[in-house]
């Protein structure tokens, strides 16, 4: 399935949840509404013509203009096609729907995005920090991150 066909399928079914797209680059991407991510991904996984059963990567991004983003790289083992989905949320209220019920691997990827960027995934079964200690302050991969002075009595910047 080409990227244009995919965009058409999604737009016809989800209408307003499909926001933008850019199809003429190396890896075409489609911007979706983060609050409907779960239904869209469930459709993409279950629909026989798309069958995106393999979530290659789920990354958090800080776009440095007051928004955070979640980028989904999905692929299909059957049809061997790939697609990139992007969801944007604001830095003050960073919420996105969790897709861990669609792909089991999203569980840890979303925990990492929460840990590093502070994006809160609604519906995630166990959203807590994964790489950093549980009582760390701040979200390091944000562009405006200032490291904390002391962590449990140890001076952090050296």
């Amino acid at each position, binding site marked *: 399935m080409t990227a244009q066909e995919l965009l058409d399928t999604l737009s016809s079914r989800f209408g307003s949840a499909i926001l933008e797209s850019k199809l003429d*680059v*190396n*890896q075409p*991407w489609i911007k979706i509404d983060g609050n409907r991510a779960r239904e869209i991904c469930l459709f993409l996984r279950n629909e026989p013509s798309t069958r995106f*059963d*393999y*979530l*290659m*990567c789920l*990354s958090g*991004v*800080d776009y440095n203009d007051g928004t955070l983003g979640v*980028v989904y*790289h999905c692929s299909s*083992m059957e049809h*061997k096609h790939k697609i*990139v989905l992007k969801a944007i949320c604001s830095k003050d209220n960073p919420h996105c729907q969790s897709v*861990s*019920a669609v*792909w*089991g*691997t999203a*569980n*840890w*990827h979303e925990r990492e995005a929460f840990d*590093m960027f502070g994006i809160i995934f609604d519906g995630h*079964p*166990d959203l*807590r*920090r*994964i*790489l*950093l*200690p*549980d009582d760390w302050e701040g979200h*390091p*991969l944000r562009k405006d991150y200032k490291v904390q002075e002391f962590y449990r009595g140890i001076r952090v910047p050296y």
Partner: protein
Amino acid sequence: MDQPKALPTNYVTQPDKIATSKGKTVRTEEMIINMGPQHPSTHGVLRLEIIVDGEIIVDAIPHIGYLHRCFEKHAEHMTNYQQVIPYADRMDYVASMNNDWAFALAIERMMKIEVPERVEYIRVIMAELQRIASHLVALGTYGIDAGAFTPFLYCFRDREEILDLFEMTCGARLLYNYIWVGGVSHDLPQGFIEQAKEFCTYFKPKIKEFNDLLTYNEIFIKRTAHVGVLPRDVAINYACSGPMLRGSGVHWDLRRDDPYSVYHKFEWEVQTGKGEVGTVGDCWDRHIVRVREMEQSVKIIEQALASIPEGNVQSAIPKRIRPEPGDIYVRTETPRGELGFYVISDGSGSPYRVKARGPAFVNLSVLPEISRGAMIADLTLIVGSVDIVLGEVDR
């Protein structure tokens, strides 16, 4: 498919009440045991919180992050894309060549750089040698987990030959900084091809020796067959890759199915687990997939050595790496599975965002699913068969 509920972090063991004949009640409780972070067999600093009922595991919760070294943050502060490569080396420190290659491939695709064919052949030879070396480590330590101390020494003896080849080429034994964006750092030295051919002839009977000692040993089969069975659909849903995925019978290898470089020029086969001595997808299947992958790597190396073309390996290395603004995700097949780099460039000389998708990180997340109902003695073997390297899990 609904997700199984993860246990909340304030899990309190539930006492079971059994009534005795005299009307009194006897309480049994599940025990929470901690395995790690320092433990001889968790292959690094991994903490496993195991909830056991006697010897049977009720749940196994991995806690990671003990080796987090902020790779992604460092990458954003590099002044040059080439400077990220030593950091990428150090992620999966057992298979450095493959890490370098994945990152270099991402930048090359973003900038649409064509590398000379000699460079491609050299990269394939190095990556396959690295695959053999990494599998030797995995298999040797797997033997130790099972209690056989000798195959480990044999594997490391053979790995020394490979490390000698690497040292001859780039001077380093473990972390090479060899594959750069656009080429490689040094050409193959004189005598490399002959020594590599000798290594291939030397190594083939060693695989058979290793199989006789460990793989087909009755005790080892009893310990690993039917243990840690990973069903096919769970593997795909949890995005497992590499020998974990192929051990469950899925015919999927990125070198063939999402091709890059010159792998299509060589004849080799994708190895999968067939459930020969147990169930499809058990620990023995993943083990035999790794052993057979080593054999296939030797085949690829021999073919590459026979047909390597001449050329200048540094002609395509760009003086200044400034990709167009955009993003790209590129994945390659490392010994552990699918290593992917998602790179966002903003048009300047340093990366805007680099996300490393480590195969060990993703493969480890399936651990609770496959170890429920196993015994504690099995858990060691299950963790060993996932073949994690904590550098890649934590980055």
